[in-house]
Each structure stands twice: as structure tokens, then as C-alpha cells.
């Protein structure tokens, strides 16, 4: 295959010989400092809830001590008694079991009615969850027909520019998945149908407090907030 590589690169170089330069635009986001962005940044939680709900996603807000109760309530609303829990949330397993939920790790995702994972970020402008691979998060957020995501509010970012800036700070894992609402298709006669391959229902539980996190970890977006 070296022949192909050399040939293609050689053809590219020959193709571009003498063509005048066009500079790469700066990386600074176009929305930096604009009223549009400031408006989002000022009310991250409200905007996030609005854009997520517009997609048919159900959003709950709670504090960490009540998280197991809220999750159990969501499961009851889904009529589910079994979950696949990703490893980052395994400390919730016991509390959930006490509420009568059958809890398995990501290995039960193929057959579980609900998958619960943490999310690394949320994007307010689009109502997006960001889930990074590892701990079974890929399969738990994909295989079951319902996905429940737990997202600390201090992980909300205004827009995609902010997201890629954050994500780009460290080496990327094998998969970073941006989830914006349920799986859907309009392929057949432009009729919108959820739950084609991925989950047809998505719940987001926002955590108002930030457990296990020291002040120095807080993202800039909420500096100075209580």
C-alpha cells in the first residue's frame, strides 16, 4: 500500500503546485463575546432543559442524596424493573437494589429495558449529552430502549464551540458520543418515528450539587456561582 500512499500524496502535491495560498481561519469561535452566546451562558440550566425537552427528552432536577429515589421513580414511569448501570455510577447500585430494582453492570445492556450512565458534559444550545467511552457507557447508552443520563449541572456548557474546546484539552478516548434526543428516523414517508436503533426514550437527571468534586475542578462556566 506504500505505492498507493506515495502516488496519492504525489498527485496531490502536483495538483496544488503554484496555487495561491489561502490561510486557515483562526480557531476563535465566531460567537465569542456575542449577545447570543452571553444569553445562553447566563441561563445554562434553563436553556438546556428547554432545548432537551423540545426533543421529547424528559428532564428532572435533584440533589445527589435524592438521586436513587428519582431514578427509581423514572424506572417506575417506564415500567422497568431491571437496569444496566455503567461503572461510573456503580455506587448507586446498592441504593437502587434497596428500592427493588434489579441492577446489573453494562454486560446486561443487551437485554435490559433501561440503561443508566453518567454524562461528561451537556450542551445548552442544542440540548446535547456528551458521553465518553469506558465503563460500559457506550453500550448502556445505546442498547436498551430507554437511556437515563445523570449529568451534574456544573458540566453544562453553552455551545458546541465550548464543548470542543473542553474535549480537545486532553487526548480523546476511542469514542465521544454527542447524544441529542432519542434515536429517530423519518425515512418512511417523512413520518418521524423514534427508537429505530438507539433508545427511543431519553431521560436526563440534572444534579444541582456536585458530589465528589473539588472546587478546582469546576468548569469556568459556573465560576463564582453558589
Amino acid at each position, binding site marked *: 500500500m506504500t505505492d498507493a500512499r506515495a502516488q496519492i500524496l504525489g498527485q*496531490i502535491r502536483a495538483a496544488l503546485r503554484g496555487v495561491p495560498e489561502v490561510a486557515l481561519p483562526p480557531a476563535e469561535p465566531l460567537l465569542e463575546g456575542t449577545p447570543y452566546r452571553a444569553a445562553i451562558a447566563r441561563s445554562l440550566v434553563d436553556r438546556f432543559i428547554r432545548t432537551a425537552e423540545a426533543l421529547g427528552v424528559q428532564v428532572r432536577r435533584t440533589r445527589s442524596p435524592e438521586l436513587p429515589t428519582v431514578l427509581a421513580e423514572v424506572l417506575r414511569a417506564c415500567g422497568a424493573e431491571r437496569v444496566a448501570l455503567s461503572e461510573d455510577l456503580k455506587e448507586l447500585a446498592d441504593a437502587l437494589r434497596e428500592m427493588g430494582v434489579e441492577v446489573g453492570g453494562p454486560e446486561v445492556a443487551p437485554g435490559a429495558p433501561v440503561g443508566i450512565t453518567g454524562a461528561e458534559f451537556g450542551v445548552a444550545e442544542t440540548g446535547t449529552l456528551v458521553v465518553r467511552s469506558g465503563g460500559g457507557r457506550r453500550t448502556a447508552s445505546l442498547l436498551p430502549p430507554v437511556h437515563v443520563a445523570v449529568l451534574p449541572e456544573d458540566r453544562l456548557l453553552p455551545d458546541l464551540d465550548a464543548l470542543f474546546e473542553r474535549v480537545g484539552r486532553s487526548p480523546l478516548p476511542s469514542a465521544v458520543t454527542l447524544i441529542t434526543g432519542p434515536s429517530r428516523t423519518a425515512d418512511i414517508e417523512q413520518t418521524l418515528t423514534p427508537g429505530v436503533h438507539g433508545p427511543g426514550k431519553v431521560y436526563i437527571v440534572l444534579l444541582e450539587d456536585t458530589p465528589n468534586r473539588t472546587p478546582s475542578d469546576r468548569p469556568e462556566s459556573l465560576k463564582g456561582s453558589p
Partner: protein
Amino acid sequence: MTEGPLPFEEASVRALANGRLQEALRRAMTGLRTKRAEATSELPHFEALRDRAKQIKTHTLLHLDRYLEQLEAQVTACGGTVHWARDAEEACRIVVEICRRYGARRVVKSKSMLTEEIELNRALQQAGVEVMETDLGEFVVQLDGDRPSHLIAPIIHKRREEVARLFARHLGTPPDAPVELLTQAARAYLRERFLTADVGITGANFLVAETGTVVLVENEGNARLSTTMPRVHIALAGIEKVIPRLGDLGVFLPLLVRSATGQRLSSYVSLITGPGRQEGEGPEAFHLVLVDNRRTEILADGELRESLQCIRCGACLNVCPVYEKVGGHAYGWVYAGPIGAVLTPQLLGLERAAELPYASSLCGACLEVCPVRIDIPRMLVRLRWRTVARGIARPSERVAMRLVFWILASARLYRIASRLGRLVQRIAFGDRPIRRLPGILGAWTRTRDFPQLPPKTFRDRFRRRP
């Protein structure tokens, strides 16, 4: 792929006679246009985004070798393998060879125009590998032995009843099942495939050079499944798909998705960087196949290079009045609509696709919406110039146009032709409306009267002014 010239003319007539297709196209295109307008007007900086995207793409193409090398280095550093394919045949050979190496018997595929371009499925099937399309529209197309007719909505031309009949035959669903049932049936059928496939094959919406990342944009989740469950992930992409930085996605994703479907963001955007072994989930091997297939030729062509900037959003199809009437199949190949009329002649050759550059009224709606501002109308005209320069135009047309030119290039001949035309009109039509004309003008008079030449031209009358 059929050999010989692509039959736009006859296909368009058939499409126009198909009332249900007309209705489906009208409804779908109107809906997509409206959604795009709403989604793009939400962003105050949308025009600036387009400018920036155009500049990023132009710059990237001018340094394509450097960015491809950077991409390759990054992918390799993350544990992936990069392959280079000069043409369709080589690309297929590489993929078949990878499948053989892993003893793969079953492949799941998510939607990729490039894989249709290189006819990958046929190559895999010939090598004894079962290939399953998993995008719902592509799955339907595969079951039916049909072809997709739109860049992002493959079965815009099919009615629910047709799909229901198809699924009844292949999946055992009730004969007139509603959309929800059909969707769930496909989900269950394909889920089993995902869980047992050896290899997942995808395209790539973007390749990020800085990080070695493949970006997959979708709504259904089949690309996620194809890149999570099987042991091996193979991504194929044209060399023009590379963008420099991760941050550039902040420009391209809003442009792509809002232009394509009017969503703020598609349900899933997957950033895939290398295989997933370390995290205990995801494929153990990741292969990226970079495909040329005449793209370097286009790159060398200063007049048409811009067409490589296309991010495959489909917005030009959605606003094109010609596409709305004829649908995607009329364009005869993988790429339909305005961008198809520019790409197909370059990828398949002008001789085979000579009709396509002329299949446009040059209204400019495509340029108006293209997120990267590709000047499609200008490129269509340039392709027309090449058609004539290469002698592809019909001899009768050349003669006629030469005559027109002589008349217009000389004030004297123009005057003579002016008088002659009036004489002929008087003899042939007298004062009657012109309802039948010979030759190609007969195509006009079939449904339209032709204007009459008044006795005196403007210049005759102007000269006589007091």
C-alpha cells in the same frame, strides 16, 4: 452500475408522469426547506459560519497532503491502521482483505455514499461476505434491489405501502403495517445482525487531522451500533473529507445538520478515535481507508476544485426546482441534484454524464443555500463549455449555434437575419399565433406559444424617433 450514457432525459419524463412521486417529492422538499430556513435563521452568525467554513475547506484542500499525513500519524498513534486506495477497485480489495484477515463472514454497514460510489457491497458479496445495510432507508433499498434517491433521505421515492409489502415478504410483518410497526420490525431484525456481525463498516462525515478522529453524524443509531458491537471497525472516506482541527467541528456540525434536516444537532454525533480495546468496549481494531478515486484529478482542476468542499448536506437537492420534479434516480448515479450534476461528470467522465450539466435552469437556489458556498451554477456552465470543447455536442447543435454566433457577431448579418426572420414568419404564419415550430423549438411549442416578431425592431423604431 449501468454502462453507457446516463439517461436523464427519459428518466425525468418517467418521474414527471409519476403522480405519487411528484406528491412525495413536493411534500418532502417543502418540509426540508422550511426546516432549514428556521434552523439557520436561529443563528445570528450563520452567514459568517458559511464564510468561515468555505475558507477552512479551501485552505485544507490547498494543503491536503499535509493534513492527510497528520491524520494518518494521529490515527496510527491511537492504535488504528490507515490504508490508501487510488481507485474503487483498490478500495474494495483493501476492505475485502481486512475482512478476510479477521475471518469475517458478516458485515453491518451504515450509510455511506462513498461505499456506493465504489460498489463495495458487490465486492464483499462476491468475496462471500454477507453485507447488511442498517440505515433504515438503505436497508429498504437493499431488500428491494433499488437505489437511494436522495443524499440523506434514501427512500423519499417510496410509499409506506411499498415498504410494508416489502417487509411482509422479508420480515413477516402484516401486509399493511403502519410506520411504527415497520420501524420496530427493522430494529429487531437488524439488532440481531449488529450483535453477531464481525465487522462494522461506515463512511465518515469528517476526518479530523489534529486528533485522528472519524466523525459520524446520524439520527438512527446504526452507525453507533456498527462501531460499537463488532470486533472490527472499517471507516472509508474520500480524501477530501479531512478538516484540520477538532474545533472546526463547531463550524461544520451546525452547518451540516441545520442545512440538511433543520435540526440543531442530529441525534448522534460519534467522535471515533482509534479502536476501543482499552476501555473494555468497542472494536479491537480500527481501520481507516482513504480513497482517491479521481479526487486528485478534481483537485488539480482549478475550475472545478471547489466541488470537493461539499459536506454532503443535501440542501442543494432540497431547494432545486429540477430535483423536486425529477427526484434522485433521474441523475443516474450515486450523487443526485445540483452537486450530483457537478460531481458525476467528473467521477464518471463527461462523455457518460454529458446531459447532467444541462439539466438545470441555473436558477442559483443551490448556491444560495450551500453551507460552504460552492458556486454550483458557475461550475455547471464550465462543464457545458467542456462538453462542447470536447466535441460531445451534437453536430446539428454545433451548426445551429455557429449560425447564431455569426448573426450576433456582425451588425450587418444581424440586420439581414432580422429581415429574413420576419419574411419567414410572414410566409409560415402570417398573423397567426406561433403554435408549431420545427426541430428543437418544437419542444417549446408543445405547450407554449412562441412570441411573434413584430414588424419593426426596436432599433428600426428608435431610429425613426422625431
